[in-house]
């Protein structure tokens, strides 16, 4: 009932009772076209500069970026980071190639698959894309990669392929749509650096409710 009333009020406010055919067409066309608005020039760069910009912007947002030359280096890099941080447990997503990589982690590390629980110290997931414009990661939910992994643990470790770095958000939407043409995954997370708050006297503190540290393993 309120729906009809609200829509009626909007229509009257616009000086008409029903939307006109022309209006319907304009809306349908805009929704179908998915046209791009103005896009900042600074992230529309050739590959090498684009990747360099991603690293620069991610670091500016206080993410840690660890550059690796191959996927094979990931297990030891992850193990090193955890050891230096004094953490001996890890909860991981389960999509490829994570199960294989995890087999190469030291046995002293307690590794678990699945959702994160309150109190977990570190998680490891894959990132779908990196966006150079602001050093942003794009992740999305699926059975193999539960969303809690991105938010509950104290430290979020993410693997990103260099070749998956795009320049601007618009390119990320195109790739996401190509993968999910009919309906988006339940949640899409754009993550730029670790959690923070300036709610106390406008002084920035890291590690509010989400991860205190965000570590990107950037794989060539």
């Amino acid at each position, binding site marked *: 009932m*309120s729906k009809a*009333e*609200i829509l009626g*009020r*909007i229509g*009257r*406010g*616009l000086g008409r009772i029903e*939307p006109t055919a022309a*209006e*319907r067409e304009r*809306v349908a066309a*805009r*929704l179908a076209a*998915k046209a*791009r*608005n*103005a*896009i*900042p*020039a600074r992230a529309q760069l050739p590959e090498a500069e684009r990747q360099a910009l991603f690293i620069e*912007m991610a670091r*500016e*947002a206080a993410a840690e970026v660890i550059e690796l030359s191959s996927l094979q280096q990931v297990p030891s890099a992850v193990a090193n980071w955890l050891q230096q941080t004094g953490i001996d447990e890890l909860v991981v997503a389960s999509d490829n190639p994570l199960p294989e990589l995890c087999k190469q982690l030291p046995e002293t590390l307690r590794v678990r698959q699945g959702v994160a629980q*309150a109190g977990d110290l570190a998680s490891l997931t894959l990132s779908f894309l990196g966006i150079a414009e602001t*050093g*942003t990661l794009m992740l999305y*939910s699926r*059975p193999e990669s*539960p*969303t809690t992994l991105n*938010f*509950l643990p104290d430290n979020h470790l993410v693997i990103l392929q260099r070749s998956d770095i795009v320049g601007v*958000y*618009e390119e990320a*939407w195109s790739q996401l749509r190509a993968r999910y043409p009919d*309906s*988006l*995954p*339940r*949640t*899409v*997370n*754009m*993550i*730029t650096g670790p*959690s*923070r*708050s*300036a*709610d*106390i*006297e*406008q002084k920035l*503190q890291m*590690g*509010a*409710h*989400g*991860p205190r540290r965000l570590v990107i393993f950037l794989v060539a």
Partner: protein
Amino acid sequence: MQITSPDFKDNARIALQDVGLQKALGNVKTGFPHKRAAAIARLPEFEQLRDEARDLKNHIIEHLDLYLEAFEAKVLENGGHVHWCRTADEARQTILKICQDKQARTVTKGKSMVTEEINLNEYLEANGVTPVETDLGEYILQLRGEHPSHIIAPAIHLNLEDVSETFHAHHHKPKSMDPAVLMQEAREELRTKFVAADVGITGANFLVAETGSSIIVTNEGNGDLTQTLPKTHIVVTSIEKVVPTLEDMTLFLRLLARSATGQEFTVYNTLSTGPRRPGDQDGPEDYHVVLVDNGRSDMIASELREMLRCIRCAACMNHCPVYGAIGGHSYGWVYPGPMGSVLTPQMIGIEQAALLPNASTFCGKCESVCPVRIPLPKLMRHWRRDEFEKHLTPGAARWGLGVWSFVARRPALYRQLTRIGSRVLRSLAGKKGRISKLPLASGWTDGREMPAPSGKTFMQQWQEQQKARQSS
């Protein structure tokens, strides 16, 4: 929430003398404007994005019913629910009903100004459902029994000392003056609440018609925990938040963080589209969107339509000299600063809020920073006019305006009176050149001195100059 907008003058007087508040407000002036300016300097396209955002919002509002219907269809297709609520009361009842159907006892909440607008917390509490605010600033305020004084930095009116005392009283831990320690305490306290909550309520910065998604933008990650952990996620938002596509949302996201906090991008920009999918191991089983009108559809037919472009970035209040002097609580309701002076009369009535659109020097700073180019001073003038037409303007002011308009329409009389006035003021000022006491204008001279006029009117000086020029 109790409305104190009619007491605006008293509120402001008290605020100006509040030493703690004045110290805290210093953080607004030194922080946000500089960060915004620095971020914009790095994005040469910023002004172009503002133009496009203004035009796109206008297009959306001209087709608002169609985009809302498209959004709803997509939410339903993804297995979610949409509830249309015309009034605050209807929205509160709808939300309570969803909570009760789930036998919810506690509800975690992400930051949402619309839930402030509909006074949701008090209503839930009165009906046996405990709301827990999870944004750090909102959490501090909930412990103190206060409301936000700013739309993106809710606790900006407080100092470290205040937070320290509040946490000491509630957390039963040793008192700390270290913000990092205080935040850690809040993190630990809220962790258990996140996990235990039956329902999570968030707002939405935008709704995407193309995909049926809502998006929240946060730095803390509290909104994400709020909407991921409980079995039910309720998005409480308002009808003007809809945008056509992901590309269109992107245009606004590029403007929002830079205008608000001066960040390149907010830490978490999270899209939610329906409930968890088959095989998903976490995420809510139910996804509800509560679409609140609460007076917005009535704004379309008037000048106020332009206000519907607002993306709640807070740049206008961050740059407002009046807000900077008196803080958000003085405005007496949910929305403070210039955007509040336009919205509040619409939502609680001009009868109660008439003083707000008058509390402006019309310096124009708000309009100059608004990312969607809302002519805020013009809209405040709309309310001043409305106030005058409804005979709400105080008698003395009406009388004064009447006299002025009589004189102003008679140039000879006007010139003569200004000549006399100018000379009288000049003589009142004495040698000092400044007037420290003026009959009928103590409101001005109590707080500061008034500069004296030169003794000659503008017209006299103009004629003298013209003569001098002709003879030279």
